[in-house]
């Protein structure tokens, strides 16, 4: 069974494009990353899945149920963390978790307490006086506390400090081991790449590709600069597999490497290396390199 399936899902806000003909399939038990730059249509897709907005055309199924007709049955089994999370300012964290737990028909408070402890959330202060990161923690606990079959998390890692980010990844991983599914949107591949099994890439409202992270990593492009102790002959690097855009100026080499760095590093080892700088290319660049920008997709500067 698929956790999420959309068919030609399209949303226009009046005349403004939301998403166009999105066909998405998320498998049960996987962690699926939904990636795209701001304005690509991630939140639109997610809010359609949650029946908060209605499609212009097309169709969405969640856990095998119709997103609109069976919303209640879906919401009993799904947790959602909105992208721009707003909670009730006058409630404390604990009250918020209690209220939201009640709306779900009550939750296992032992697990809630464990989540609060693991994320180092102080549940006694009011939402209003919490930092953005702490509010996000409350949202995460609220999402995880009911042990939902499907977690739909819209940019869950924005505003989290690295420690919480790590704990969040553990939680998602635990959910996966229990056979539960996570659908996580992000505009930063590095934030989710070690977590996800597969990623879908959305741009300008269109789902451009779905790839496993393993495949994407093989194709990852890295910009590399190597500084040598003395000038090196360009020919020594010309035929190294995976190297593109090679430039050699005296003792400085720069290029783009696709996939493994191994061959290049070995070639460089024949000379005295002073320093290596690598720069991972953005998701968008990897994507554009492989799938090309669509006709209506102007090349956004990375």
């Amino acid at each position, binding site marked *: 069974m698929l956790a999420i399936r959309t068919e030609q899902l399209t949303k226009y806000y009046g005349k403004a494009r939301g998403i166009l003909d999105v066909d998405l399939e998320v498998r049960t038990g996987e962690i699926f990353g939904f990636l795209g730059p701001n304005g690509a249509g991630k939140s639109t897709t997610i809010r359609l899945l949650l029946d908060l907005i209605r499609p212009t055309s097309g169709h969405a199924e969640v856990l095998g149920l119709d997103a609109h007709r069976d919303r209640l049955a879906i919401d009993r089994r799904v947790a959602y963390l909105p992208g721009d*999370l707003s909670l*009730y300012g006058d409630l404390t964290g604990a009250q918020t978790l209690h209220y939201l737990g009640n709306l779900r*028909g009550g939750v296992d408070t032992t697990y809630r307490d464990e989540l609060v402890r693991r994320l180092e959330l102080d549940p006694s202060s009011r939402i209003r006086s919490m930092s953005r990161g702490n509010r996000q923690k409350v*949202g995460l606990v609220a999402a995880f506390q009911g042990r939902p079959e499907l977690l739909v998390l819209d940019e869950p890692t924005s505003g989290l400090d690295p420690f919480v980010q790590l704990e969040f990844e553990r939680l998602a991983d635990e959910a996966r081991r229990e056979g539960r599914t996570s659908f996580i949107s992000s505009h930063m591949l590095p934030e989710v790449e070690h977590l996800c099994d597969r990623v879908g890439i959305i741009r300008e409202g269109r789902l451009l590709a779905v790839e496993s992270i393993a495949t994407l990593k093989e194709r990852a492009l890295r910009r590399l600069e190597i500084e040598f102790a003395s000038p090196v002959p360009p020919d020594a690097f010309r035929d190294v597999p995976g190297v593109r855009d090679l430039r050699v100026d005296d003792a400085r080499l720069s290029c783009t490497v696709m996939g493994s760095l191994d061959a290049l590093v070995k070639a460089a080892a024949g000379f005295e290396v002073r320093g290596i700088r690598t720069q991972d290319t953005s998701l968008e660049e990897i994507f554009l390199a492989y799938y090309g920008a669509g006709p209506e997709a102007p090349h956004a500067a990375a």
Partner: protein
Amino acid sequence: MLLRSVFTKTVRDLRWPTFWTALALFVGGGYFTLLYPTYATQFKLTELLDQLPAAMKALIGAQVADVSTATGFLNIELFPMILPAVLAGFAIALGSGATAGEESRGTIDVLLSYPVPRWLVVTQKAAAIVLSVVVVAAGLWVGAVLGAAASNSPLDSGRVAEALVMAALLALDFGSIALLLASGTGNRGLGIGVSVALLVVMYFVNALAPVISGLDSVKQASLFFWYLESNPIRHGISIGDSLVLAAVAIALFLASLVAFERRDLAA
């Protein structure tokens, strides 16, 4: 304890506005009945009112009451205008905020991702609003009764209660207008603006109908007509007119369920 359901949460959200408004009406009701004897003797109210031109009397509702009792005094001072305006204003503020408040604060996304139907969210919020309006109206009643007791003024507390029921129904009508507009559009300001405008227009249409002949034929379109026509504080509650007021509120409420169900919610 108050965070069990959308209903109890809304009761909790409304507890302070409700308390303060009820207190204000308690003080207002007490003020008028407590001071009634002073007014009655010092200002010779009956004679004073007799000298007013008809249009003026119509505007303040003096044609429907006599001021020889505290009940009649309230009927002039509070019931034609101030009380319905305060109650309706209160109901408009709450009705417009019911779901549009959650939308503008951005909490609607979280709320409606839980297994609660949209119609039930509106219904539970509306129920909490009805409760608040009842509490606020009761505040006036208690104030008036205590004030009358303290000043030994003749007050028919049963009649005051009956009139308050009709005033509360009128207020809920305006609250439902605000609810329909705000939940149907997500725009709280629109809900408030249009309902307040209707409140003012409807008040004047009914109040001036006896003196401006053109208005007489349209006065039934004014909700104030159904509230005041039977002069409830003097003759008791009019079941027929109350049903009209209640039917309007229920119809508008049902319409807002439909309107809210269909909408794209604001992000």
